[in-house]
């Protein structure tokens, strides 16, 4: 019967119910979008690294899986690696950050990269043929509104987009390695080496051999490397997510506290009626709590819906910078965040309602 009363109450004031649920939904959306964005970016990065077709990744000394550090690798090391047992292919790549922190350009030797990855698949135009040409992937093309043949400014220079390729191969922008090395005063240097071994069963042995040979370098099998792409391995992201969760709980608390406080004031007389019928304090509190829980659940559902809308928005506007995903594993957490905020927010109005003097409440106009 309490549930029916709660349901009728929330139906009785649809605008208040909708606005309260919407305000609860906003932080739910933020948390889900953040989680989805982390997942999307990690999945995208994993897919692109695997798209290289390599079995082993070698990164500079002092680098982490997130940053390449400042010490590049001498290009001659690639030649040494090629001579190691079981190494079928090795290619050095230069990664250069662009002005936009979310994107970078990769300098490749086209022949070596094609052998390893199977080549870029073009949806428009073709591979760069001159040093002032670049190729971009379809997401970068969509986000920056660039097409094959368009001019583009990168690294403070004018370039021409010679082709647009299907995404999923290491990077979104490729250019000639030699040219990029010269432009960045890194002639003879690379900052990533990809290695393909003759047979998959030799990967472990080859990694061990390379670790002995190249002491201090970060050497991973591709499986080990892509396993690092988890938001748990990015401390700043984990902290940011926690802060967002805290803010979300607080917003949920504030919204529900205000909304239920108003509801209790508006329903003073009704609370008096319930008390005159013999309703205990707990009966009255449970009405307020259940209404808050209902608002939180509606807010969660709305928030989940809005996270899909946010995903669509990100995918439409900035697919290259923020490849989003929806992570249903976060739905229970989002519901828990909304519920915790709502229950905390409903406690004070609930206690206030429960402590009302029935005679004063009944005389309330």
């Amino acid at each position: 019967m309490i549930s029916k009363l709660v349901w009728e109450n929330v139906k009785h004031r649809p605008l208040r119910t909708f606005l309260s649920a919407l305000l609860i939904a906003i932080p739910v959306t933020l948390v889900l979008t953040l989680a989805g964005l982390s997942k999307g970016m990690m999945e995208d990065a994993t897919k692109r690294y695997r798209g290289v077709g390599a079995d082993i990744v070698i990164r500079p000394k002092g680098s982490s899986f997130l940053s390449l550090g400042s010490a590049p690798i001498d290009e001659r090391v690639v030649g040494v690696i090629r001579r190691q047992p079981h190494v079928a292919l090795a290619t050095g790549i230069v990664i250069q950050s662009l002005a936009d922190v979310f994107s970078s350009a990769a300098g490749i030797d086209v022949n070596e990269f094609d052998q390893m990855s199977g080549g870029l698949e073009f949806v428009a135009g073709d591979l760069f043929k001159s040093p002032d040409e670049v190729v971009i992937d379809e997401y970068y093309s969509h986000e920056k509104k660039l097409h094959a043949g368009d001019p583009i400014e990168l690294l403070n220079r004018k370039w021409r987009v010679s082709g647009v390729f299907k995404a999923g191969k290491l990077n979104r922008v490729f250019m000639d390695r030699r040219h990029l090395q010269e432009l960045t005063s890194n002639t003879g240097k690379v900052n990533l080496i990809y290695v393909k071994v003759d047979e998959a069963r030799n990967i472990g042995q080859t990694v061990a051999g390379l670790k002995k040979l190249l002491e201090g370098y970060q050497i991973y099998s591709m499986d080990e490397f892509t396993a690092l792409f988890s938001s748990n391995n990015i401390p700043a992201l984990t902290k940011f997510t926690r802060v967002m969760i805290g803010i979300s709980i607080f917003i949920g608390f504030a919204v529900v506290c205000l909304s239920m406080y108003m509801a209790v004031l508006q329903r003073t007389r009704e609370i008096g009626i319930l008390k005159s019928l013999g309703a205990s304090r707990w009966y009255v509190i449970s009405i307020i709590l259940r209404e808050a829980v209902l608002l939180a659940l509606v807010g969660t559902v709305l928030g989940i819906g809005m996270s899909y809308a946010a995903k669509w928005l990100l995918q439409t506007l900035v697919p290259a910078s923020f490849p989003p995903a929806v992570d249903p594993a976060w739905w229970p957490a989002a519901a828990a965040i909304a519920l915790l905020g709502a229950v905390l927010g409903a406690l004070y109005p609930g206690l206030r309602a429960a402590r009302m003097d029935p005679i004063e409440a009944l005389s309330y106009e």
Partner: protein
Amino acid sequence: MSESPIIRIEKLRKVYRVGKVDVEALRGVDLEVGSGEFLSIVGPSGSGKSTLFHVVGGLTPATSGTVQVGGRDLGGMTDAERTQLRKTVVAFVFQKYNLLPTLTAADNIAIARDIAGRDSLPDPGFEKVLELLGIAQRLHHKPSELSGGEQQRVAIARAVVNHPAILLADEPTGNLDSANSEIVLSLLRNLNETLGQTILMITHNPEAAAYGHRIVHMRDGRMEP
């Protein structure tokens, strides 16, 4: 009507604190009400009639004196015990009906049972009471869709659904026209006669008071001789 008193009140005083001023609403009330009696309480505004109901109904404690309802002494009862009293022993009917506006008539009745810890379906015999009250066909309407007379009849149904020993009706016809007043008063008398329901009714109206077995007068917080 049985002669054994279901309500026994002796030297009842009730003092309210309004701001910094003490207001003595009841100044030594003595009253006995027999089980099954229909008692009308008449008096001008401010005579303490409603306060007497609030004390007898357990909505507020007495300042001093003795109040026994159904053999239970209300003096020293905790808030929770008085809440329990309202669930099972006494029930109110108010001048302004006091139905929950978001619930249908049926649900307004059902919630009284829910509060009392019973299932929401009334006892089989309750259909007879609903027929007596003439609201059996109006149960699925919300209060805003009912006339004043119908709302008050729903309020009476809600009050008696848990078979309380005592029904406290505070100006039950105060908001009704004369036709509806007559219907409600006849119903109260019917309930009293048919079910043996003890009823205490506050009224300003001498004609309404005449529906009771006995009329007592209050003035300035006391019973008039």
